[in-house]
């Protein structure tokens, strides 16, 4: 029998449900039975409810089995899974699974398929084509391609990436930087983490292209410390890329320099805000800077700096490789391309769903998600992380694009979607939004630092039934003030989840008061 290739994810989500133990069990069982296998550890395909999802290479393609528990391994061998044999856990060929087929995998095309730390695998699957094209083009041409693709910043604000790059390109300076913001710790988002663990060379390639485009020779990827696996993988990938000449004094032998470092955050949510991230990289407290000056002109160490999100930079290689039009053909209106949505919370089939803009929220949470994991009705869905709005069922038909969400007082943000069933207490969620802001505020501006604390107190009074109408007035006032007067999105958007909870779920704030001491 020939050596059979078996794939077991090493993505942190898969590890969190014992993928390592499954990989060991498969290795041991194969040894016991004298079967020759080679286990490749991959990223995750993003079908997280099926993790650990084991794949076997057969003549019919890669056949998937999941979720595989340690104790299932012997029966998988009995069923001949090394030849794609039938088993209760068989999901068929992985690319034929409906959940995968209905997606448009551009950024996440390789994630789960390849060995994340094999540069050969990366090249064999189309990697480095974008960088090669970039090396043959002028900086202005690269920037124009990015502009023409319609790519907008995937971190939340949706700012056109090409416009940002043009500003840095046109700035005159001896040193410029590319900074990747991998510290956008929005709850309900894990696309950055999955990408860095599953296809780190893609981010490296995107950053190198950004550097070539604007004349920056140094890059930093600032990774949140809550993602230790992603940090280790990125650091290892950067070393490999440097040894292979993808990074360094002569990128792919071109004579042009670009190198980068991975830096670890330290548990401050605010460092996902670009200016406080720059402060943190410089070795200071992560306190927000006033804008202007824009980071594009005076960024890291006062030099012109591209600050982009992981997914924005990861979208760039395919724009260069396949041309901007191919990317712009996805999507609708002013939202072009694809967005990797992240379906989490109380959902039956959670995971990563990369779609062209324009599908509806309902498509995602019902068709892909299959409703709640608890089996109870969905009551609210928070879109766009802790600063995103809570939406009721009546808004589930909203198309997933930046403008349509802005029109209903919500935002797509980073594409994180947290599903809640009908047991959720929306007054508690609104309170949490303020509590989180109070804990994580950098403290520089008063509306955020003080407003968040006042917000917690005011909601407590409302819930306790103390002068409710008067306190609703205070809350409205506070929300308005924080929205208008905060220095950055932390204070400025905290009212979004609060106001949406008030607007759509007012009954939760008007319940008969309970004694505060009762748990």
């Amino acid at each position, binding site marked *: 029998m020939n050596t059979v290739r078996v794939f077991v994810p090493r993505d942190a989500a898969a590890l969190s*449900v014992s993928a390592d133990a499954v990989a060991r069990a498969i290795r041991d069982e194969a040894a016991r039975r004298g079967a020759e296998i080679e286990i490749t550890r991959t990223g995750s395909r993003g079908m997280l409810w099926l993790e650990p999802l084991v794949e076997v290479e057969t003549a019919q393609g890669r056949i998937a089995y999941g979720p595989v528990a340690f104790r299932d391994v012997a029966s998988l061998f009995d069923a001949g899974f090394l030849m794609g044999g039938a088993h209760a856990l068989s999901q068929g060929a992985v690319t034929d699974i409906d959940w995968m087929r209905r997606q448009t995998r551009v950024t996440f095309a390789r994630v789960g398929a390849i060995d994340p730390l094999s540069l050969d695998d990366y090249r064999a699957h189309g990697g480095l084509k974008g960088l090669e094209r970039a090396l043959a083009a002028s900086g202005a041409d690269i920037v124009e391609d990015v502009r023409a693709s319609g790519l907008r910043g995937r971190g939340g604000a949706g700012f056109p990436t090409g416009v940002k790059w043009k500003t840095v390109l046109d700035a005159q300076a001896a040193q410029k930087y590319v900074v990747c913001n991998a510290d956008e710790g929005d709850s309900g988002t894990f696309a950055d983490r999955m990408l860095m663990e599953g296809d780190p060379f893609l981010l490296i390639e995107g950053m190198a292209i950004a550097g070539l485009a604007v004349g920056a020779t140094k890059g930093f990827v600032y990774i949140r410390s809550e993602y230790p696996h992603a940090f280790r993988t990125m650091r290892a990938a950067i070393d490999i890329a440097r040894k292979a000449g993808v990074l360094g004094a002569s990128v792919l032998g071109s004579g042009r320099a670009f190198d980068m470092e991975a830096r670890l955050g330290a548990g401050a949510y605010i460092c996902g805000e670009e200016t406080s991230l720059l402060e943190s990289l410089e070795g200071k407290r992560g306190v927000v800077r006033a804008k202007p000056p824009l980071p594009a002109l005076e960024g890291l160490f006062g030099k012109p700096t591209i600050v982009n999100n992981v997914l924005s930079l990861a979208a760039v290689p395919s724009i260069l490789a396949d041309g901007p039009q191919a990317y712009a053909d996805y999507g609708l209106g002013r939202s072009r391309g694809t967005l990797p949505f992240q379906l989490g919370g109380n959902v039956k089939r959670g995971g990563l769903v990369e779609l062209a803009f324009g599908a509806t929220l309902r498509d995602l949470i019902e068709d892909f998600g299959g409703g709640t994991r608890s089996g109870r009705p969905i009551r609210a869905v928070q879109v766009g992380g802790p600063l995103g709005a809570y939406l009721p069922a009546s808004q589930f038909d909203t198309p997933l694009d930046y403008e349509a969400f802005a029109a209903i007082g919500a935002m797509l943000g980073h594409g994180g979607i947290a599903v809640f069933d009908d047991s959720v207490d929306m007054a508690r969620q609104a309170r949490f939004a303020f509590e989180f802001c109070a804990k994580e505020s950098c403290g520089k501006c008063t509306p955020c630092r003080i407003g968040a604390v006042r917000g917690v107190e005011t909601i407590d009074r409302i819930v306790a039934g103390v002068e409710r109408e008067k306190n609703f007035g205070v809350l409205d006032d506070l929300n308005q003030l924080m929205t208008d007067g905060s220095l950055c999105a932390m204070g400025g958007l905290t009212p979004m989840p609060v106001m949406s909870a008030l607007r759509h779920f007012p009954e939760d704030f008007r319940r008969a008061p309970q004694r505060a001491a009762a748990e």
Partner: protein
Amino acid sequence: MASTAVWDEGKAREIIVRLAKLDGAMLPILHALQDEFGFVHAGATALIADALNVSRAEAHGVISFYHDFRPKPAGRRVVKLCRAEACQANGCEELVAELRRHRGLDADNQDDERLTIETVYCLGNCALGPSALVDGELVGRLDAERLADLCDGGPVQVAQTAAGDTR
């Protein structure tokens, strides 16, 4: 995970000197000190201030700004429990309440030499929550029993998947 190494000024100085040449060396130094000793000793402030040519106030300001840097060693078991929205939707606050009710553990203030519980906001495991980072390893689909066992020092790596069992 948490190192049991005792504070050693010479060693700290070595680490600081080795890393001080990096651009923006402050955070890399602090992480390296914490990796080595399990915490950032108060004595590090002056050493860092000297090496990076900043005031002691500035160095202290940075150390105290970031949640990650601990002024004292953590417990032998460190549980970083995610309490952000997606894990809330899967009942992480009920797990916290259970810990208090049945184990008398206060997740907000548990920090002794046996066990440290820290709150984190999102480990990026939002589809398999509730989640915790236990001694650096990610654990998903936590339930009250498993969390209590982990708090008691139980094994992080188990043979059977929690996911397979609870579906």
